Every structure is written in structure tokens, then in C-alpha cells.
């Protein structure tokens, strides 16, 4: 299996990089923050990305996608990570579209996937209920009614909820928090009565919300997959999300590292470029080494995903990616600020945005300890 990009992939990388540098530099996120934009991403910018095919990259052709594969989507995510572009790529494309594609009926797919690929629909993924990623620990209840189900409970930290026209909701139809049995997925209109979206202001200036479900009645057709058996699709969805998020983190990490190395070459102190100081050189060399490992993991996981039904070891690869990327993301974001000195501490400089985003991305979909623990279990120890 190839871990280096082919011609097509190199072209995609090149075009995504130019697009992000030119159309979506860090200034875009800064502006969203400073204007306290409610949506969370610039609509026209997202439409341009949709026009480039980014929304449909991993959606099957029959549902309006382009089937360019997860490697392609990963390349795009890496580039958006380099300039911290706020997009619904994680919420809608990586998580919700994947869940619909894996678990949905043909009708559900036909209704939503083409709309997603065309940029007409934003679907938020409502999973977490506490301050830590804990997918089996769902307790939002789905109780069967005459017409369908009634949902009651609260979801926290739901990405892009403000912009969403639909939600994928992870609910419990039987059993107790912690059980993997009894988890059901629902796909519902965000305007369904009883849903209250309470926006959050997070350090990374991306859009998230707490969403409460108070006697929310949905028809039987809102069920995504089989009642009580949502776990396998949820797990795979999350693994794809973790790998994609790792790709985004990889982009941010590389950007911070490259900016830092550049700064080491330019900045002089005591009459020499600070990059000539061996202690900084060695720290830079160690960071470089760790980043090379991150690259390999992300590429390996993405290309494994693209083998479709032959894909192997996805859960372990996803946990390896997320664990390692969390670790290196913490390292690089801290070293980036430290090596830049005072200027890195100023809001005027972009570095702080990367530091803030790093910690949110580290928590999202499981932190380093969660994934090392999961990896150890998957490897039988």
C-alpha cells in the first residue's frame, strides 16, 4: 500500500493549499471570532469549497458524491488545518454523512446525501453528554410511541448545531449508560419542536452548542438503522471522524512547525539567528521526527479506509492516529509559542489560534489517554 501521494493526490493538495492560503487564511477565523458570527463558518466560503467538490469527496457517486476517497478528504482536511478554516467538514461530512451512509435507509440517503454533497444541507452530530468523550455512555432516552419515538435529554458540545438543518442524534432506546447494546441513531429535522440549541463560545472560536431535547417526537422513519443496534455504525463513524480530525490536526501541526522554523531562521538575538542555537535545533529536530511519524500514521489510516470492505485494523489505526496526534499537537503548540517568545503571546499574531484549536481538537472524539487505553484493549492487553 502506498504511503506517498500519487499525481492526482498531489494536485489536490496543491489546489487545496492555494485555496486555503488565498481564500481562507487564519484571518477568516479571526474575523468570525471578532464579529461573533452566529453560524460558525462563512457561508460563501463553504459554498466555494463545495464547488471544489470537497463536500462530496467521500460520498458515493450514486448519492451525488465524487468518491475521491478518504485520502482525498484527508488531504483537504490537512490543508484546512493549516489555516484553521472553520468549516462543517468534521460535523457534516466526516461524522453525519458517514453515519447516514453506513446506517441509513436508501430513502434517508437519497434525501440527505446529495443535499450534503451539494452544500445545501448541514447536519450536526449530537453525541457527547459530558465533559469527556465517552460514546457508550449515552443516556439521552428514545422511548417508543405510537407514531415513532420520543427523545429526552441533553447533548453537549454539538459542532455546527447553529447552522444545522438536521441532526444525527445518538440515543439510548434500552439498557443503561455504558452499554453498547441499546444505542439507536436518529436522523431528524433541527426544527422539530422541543429542540433547544444553546450556542457556546469556545476558545477555538469554532461553532458548538449544547442542545436539549425536551419531549421531542419523531416518526418511526427517523430511526437510522436498527433500533438498539447502532453501536457498530457509531464506532465506525467515530473512527472515520477520528482519522479525519487527525488529518486536520496534522495540517495545523505542520503549519505551526514550519512557521516556527521560519522564525528561528529570521529572528536574531545576541548577534546570531536563534536557529543557530543548538538547544533549539535539537528541539526542532525532535519535533520534526514526531511529525514524520504523525504523517505516516494519518496516511496509513486514510489509505486503509479507502480499501473499503478490505479495510483492516481501522479501530486500532484510528486510536493510534488520535493518540499520537494529540500528543504531538500538545508538544508543537506549546513549543511554537515558546520559541516565538513574546510575540507568540500576542493576540495580533496567529499562533494563539493554533494553540487554542489544538486543545479543543485534542479533547474532541477522545483525548490521548482515551485512545491509548482503547488501543491497548484492541491489542489485547
Amino acid at each position, binding site marked *: 500500500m502506498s504511503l506517498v501521494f500519487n499525481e492526482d493526490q498531489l494536485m489536490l493538495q496543491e489546489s487545496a493549499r492555494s485555496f486555503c492560503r488565498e481564500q481562507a487564511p487564519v484571518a477568516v477565523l479571526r474575523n468570525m471570532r471578532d464579529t461573533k458570527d452566529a453560524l460558525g463558518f462563512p457561508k460563501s466560503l463553504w459554498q466555494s469549497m463545495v464547488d471544489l467538490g470537497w463536500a462530496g469527496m467521500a460520498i458515493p457517486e450514486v448519492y451525488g458524491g465524487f468518491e475521491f476517497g478518504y485520502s482525498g478528504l484527508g488531504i483537504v482536511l490537512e490543508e484546512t488545518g493549516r489555516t484553521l478554516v472553520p468549516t462543517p467538514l468534521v460535523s457534516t461530512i466526516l461524522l453525519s454523512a458517514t453515519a447516514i451512509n453506513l446506517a441509513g435507509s436508501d430513502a434517508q440517503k437519497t434525501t440527505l446525501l446529495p443535499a450534503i454533497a451539494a452544500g445545501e444541507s448541514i447536519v450536526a452530530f449530537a453525541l457527547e453528554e459530558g*465533559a469527556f468523550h465517552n460514546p457508550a455512555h449515552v443516556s439521552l432516552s428514545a422511548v417508543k410511541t405510537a407514531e415513532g419515538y420520543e427523545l429526552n435529554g441533553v447533548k453537549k458540545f454539538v459542532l455546527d448545531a447553529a447552522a444545522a438543518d438536521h441532526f444525527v442524534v445518538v440515543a439510548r432506546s434500552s439498557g443503561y449508560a455504558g452499554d453498547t447494546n441499546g444505542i439507536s441513531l436518529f436522523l431528524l429535522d433541527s426544527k422539530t419542536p422541543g429542540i433547544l440549541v*444553546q450556542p457556546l463560545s469556545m476558545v477555538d472560536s469554532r461553532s458548538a452548542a449544547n442542545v436539549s431535547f425536551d419531549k421531542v417526537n419523531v416518526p418511526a422513519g427517523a430511526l437510522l438503522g436498527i433500533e438498539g443496534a447502532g453501536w457498530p455504525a457509531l464506532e465506525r463513524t467515530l473512527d472515520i471522524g477520528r482519522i479525519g480530525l487527525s488529518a486536520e490536526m496534522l495540517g495545523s501541526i505542520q503549519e505551526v512547525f514550519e512557521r516556527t522554523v521560519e522564525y528561528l531562521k529570521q529572528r536574531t538575538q545576541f*548577534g546570531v539567528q536563534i536557529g543557530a542555537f543548538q538547544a533549539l535545533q535539537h528541539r526542532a529536530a525532535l519535533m520534526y521526527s514526531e511529525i514524520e511519524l504523525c504523517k505516516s500514521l494519518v496516511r496509513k489510516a486514510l489509505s486503509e479506509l479507502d480499501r473499503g470492505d478490505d479495510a483492516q485494523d481501522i479501530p486500532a489505526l484510528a486510536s493510534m492516529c488520535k493518540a499520537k496526534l494529540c500528543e504531538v499537537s500538545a508538544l508543537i503548540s506549546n513549543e511554537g509559542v515558546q520559541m516565538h517568545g513574546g510575540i507568540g503571546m*500576542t493576540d495580533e499574531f496567529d499562533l494563539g489560534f493554533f494553540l487554542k484549536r489544538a486543545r479543543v481538537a485534542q479533547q474532541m472524539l477522545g483525548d490521548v489517554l482515551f485512545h491509548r487505553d482503547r488501543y491497548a484493549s484492541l491489542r489485547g492487553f
Partner: protein
Amino acid sequence: MTDLDSFREDTRAWLEENCPASMRTPAAEDEVVWGGRNAVYKHPDSRIWLDRMAAKGWTCPTWPAEYGGGGLDKAQSLILAEEMQRIGARPPLMSFGISMLGPVLLEMATHEQKLEHIPKIVRGEIRWCQGYSEPGAGSDLAGLGTKAILDGDHYLINGSKIWTSYADKADWIFCLVRTDFEVPKHSGISFILFDMQTPGVSTKPIKLISGNSVFCETFFDDVRVPARNVIGSLNDGWTIAKRLLQHERTMISGFGLSSGRNSRGGLGGSLEQTAMTYRGDTDKLSDPVLRDQIAQFKIDSEAFAFTSQRSAQEAKLSKGPNATSSMLKNYGCELNKRRFELLLQAAGTQALGWESLTADASDFAPEELSVAREWLRSKGNSIEGGTYEVQLNVIAKRVLGLPDMTTMLVKQ
């Protein structure tokens, strides 16, 4: 009864009578009294408390009574501190005048200079800021370019400073300026004081990644300062600057000292309590690896506190700050940074809020928000007051006696 016993008795009685009940609780961040011409007393009692303490010179207990200080000896000042701690009394005044400038003035200034400045520091009448770093200079402090040119009995000062803490709120500045341009860079620097209201002084706050702006850029445009405001010998300011940096390091290393305590960090309880609370644990922290990391952190914090004690005891024996100040500064800062990283892990996404959008803080509690802000702020600890890297250089060369490659380079 010994003299010290009776001193303790008197002090206790005086505090009992004079320390307002409201001043016997920890001060919120915005209740801290910094003094100065535009002093803010958010709590009205804090003014009373300051005035009473200042009248006895107990804002600066060990400084000579001649200049308004308390005139206490080491043992007495320890008793005063213990008695204040006993009732939980707040420090009446926080100031760079007390922690940094004052000790240096007492050591290096003339009698007249002391008479002019020290009493106002003691009484909190003048708030000071520090003009050291310059844009582009960074760790290379001695490479400063702010010029002071003698013009009669005044200096004409031009240039700019950066990272001046609270320059926009300060009344006076203690400042490093270049007074000789013909000599090696460390040799032509002088240490000078002037009023921030002097024409030509302007400040511009710097917004930090934490959203706060405690630092400023400060600009000097033909600022006229009396020549008698130079402290110590002309062109010998570097000696004073180094002395003062030692005091600053000692102050900053205090970050680490308090980082083991339970009361800091925004979230009510200790680090381990926070981790347990956010996980719903009662007896034992349920994440064993985080538990190990917190244990490691706390062991280091306790060991650091013992080391600070030991260093203070050694300094007392050898008189004057000792070689460990660089090590304490660095370790203290790293501990503080570690603490906040662990707090983020302890509280998960609840520690990643930027502001509350709800009236009842049902999204993020104020303590949670302050964790995020203080976490960001903590990243500066290893940059300000001599970077992490510079401190390691100092340890390697001064303490361990390793040879200096930069000197070899500069010799080129």
C-alpha cells in the same frame, strides 16, 4: 516573656483591632490594591486597611523606618506574616515598587533618592512600572536602543519599550536607557526613573492570547528627565538591572510555589478534586493515568516548595540571593504551566470555554472560564523575566561552570 513574644502579642492585638473583617478573606482578582495616583479600591475597606498598615510602615515591614518602612527585623517580620496569615488578612498593597524597585533603591540609591521615592512606595502613592525589554530585543536585554542624551541638567530620552506591565496604569517608570554609545553594549547602560506624565510618554496596551492586556508598548518621544534621576553610577545601569532581575525571578518563581496549593487555578478545589468532581468520582480518581500524572505533578510541587525553603535558608546563611534563583524561576514556571495543562485535562471540554453566553452561566461557570484564560496566560511564564532558554544558559554557565560558546562567537 521574650521581646518576640510580646511583639507577637502586640501585633496580634493591633491586627485584631485594625484589620477590617472584610479584609480577612482572599481578595478576588479585581479587589487587589495596586495603589498609585489613580488607585482603585473596589472594596472601600481596602483603603482603610492600606492606610492603617502604611502608617505603621507594615506594607514594607523590613524597610528602614527612616524612609517610612516598618523597621522590623527578620524575626519580627516573620511574626507579622504569621499573625496576618492566622487571621487570613489580605496583603494591603501589591506593587512592583515593593517587590522589585524598592529593594534595589535601598541598596543602590542616594539618601535623597530614597527620601524622594521610598515613602511613596510604602504608602502606595506611586505605582511603578518597569522599562526593560524593547521591540526586537527579546532575551538580548543588553542590546537595548532607547537613547538618553544629556542636554544640560536633563536627559532627552527617545525610543520605546515593550512588555511593560501595567504601563497604562503606572505613575512612574524605572527604565534602562543607553547613555554611552562608544562602549561594549553592557557598559553604556544607565538606570533612570521618571514620571509617566512627562510630555512625550505614551503607552499602547498589547492584547494577549488570553484576551487580557496587562502589558503595554511604551513610547518615548523627546522625554526630558532630570539627570539626578539616574540611580547608581552613570553607565553602570546593567549592574542594577541584573540585581533587579534576580528580585523579579524570585517573585515569578512564586508561581510554582503556589501551584501546589489547593486554592489556585480558578476551579474551586485542588487539581485532583477537580478531576474527581468532573468525573463524578468520590474516593479515588477513576482515570488511573491522569491520577499518576497529577501525583507526579504534586510530588514535584511539594519538592519544589521544599527547595524554595532550602534556598531561602541557604541565602540567609550566605547573605543575598544565591545561584538557585534561575533554577527556581524556571522550575516554578514550568510547574505552573503543567498545572494548567493538567487542569484542562481534569475538566475536559468544560475548561475550554471562552465566555458565557447565558445569563445563569449554565454553559460555562466563571471559574471554568478563568481556567482557560489563566492557562493561556501561563504560557508567558517561561518567556517573561528571562526566558526558559536564558535561565538554562545561566544555570549551565554560572552554576555548572560549563564553557560559553556564545562568548567564543562574540569574540570573533
